[in-house]
């Protein structure tokens, strides 16, 4: 049992590095973002290994959920051509006023 823990730590560390490399270097952005979500979830496991359950909760919710959702939504808006509704908000006269 005492050998299993360092092996597990080494596997987790290598998985983190490999996932991060594949996430930033993959030619398809969608795959990169999905790998980044997986990276966040493995990171939550690493936080548990480092005796930080509070951080693991926050990372699983934010790193594994919110950041990925933000990135995917932005990717969808970028690829649908120019972010409809974000860039031209100020110039449209059809936009009602906002306080």
């Amino acid at each position: 049992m005492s050998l299993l823990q360092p092996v597990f730590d080494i596997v987790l560390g290598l998985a983190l590095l490999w996932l991060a490399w594949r996430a930033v270097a993959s030619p398809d952005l969608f795959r990169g973002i999905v790998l980044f979500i997986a990276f966040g979830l493995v990171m939550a496991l690493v936080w548990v290994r480092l005796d930080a359950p509070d951080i693991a909760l926050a990372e699983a919710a934010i790193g594994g959920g919110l950041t990925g959702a933000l990135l995917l939504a932005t990717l969808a808006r970028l690829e649908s051509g120019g972010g409809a509704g974000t860039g031209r908000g100020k110039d449209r006269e059809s936009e009602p006023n906002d306080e």
Partner: protein
Amino acid sequence: MNTALLYALVGAGLFFLGLYALIVHAHLLRKILAINVMGSGVFLVLVALAARTGEAAPDPVPHAMVITGIVVAVSATALALALALRVQAETGRAELPEEPLE
């Protein structure tokens, strides 16, 4: 080498991996991904250094810093993504222009 040092080295590796990707890629979304990887590397170094307490409970002050750091990082990412969308709306491309090397 104990657990804390191993994860601290992994965190340093993540930081420089993200820094390389930040400098090399031109697409804004990739840069934002790279910055997030760098941030995760920094958090990993912080918490790994906080786990050096031996048999006792880990040092909770870096834990608190990293929790607030994660939330601030996601809000900064959201602002950066809104800026990237605005850059594309204004210039038509979501990439920084390549500068010609001398």
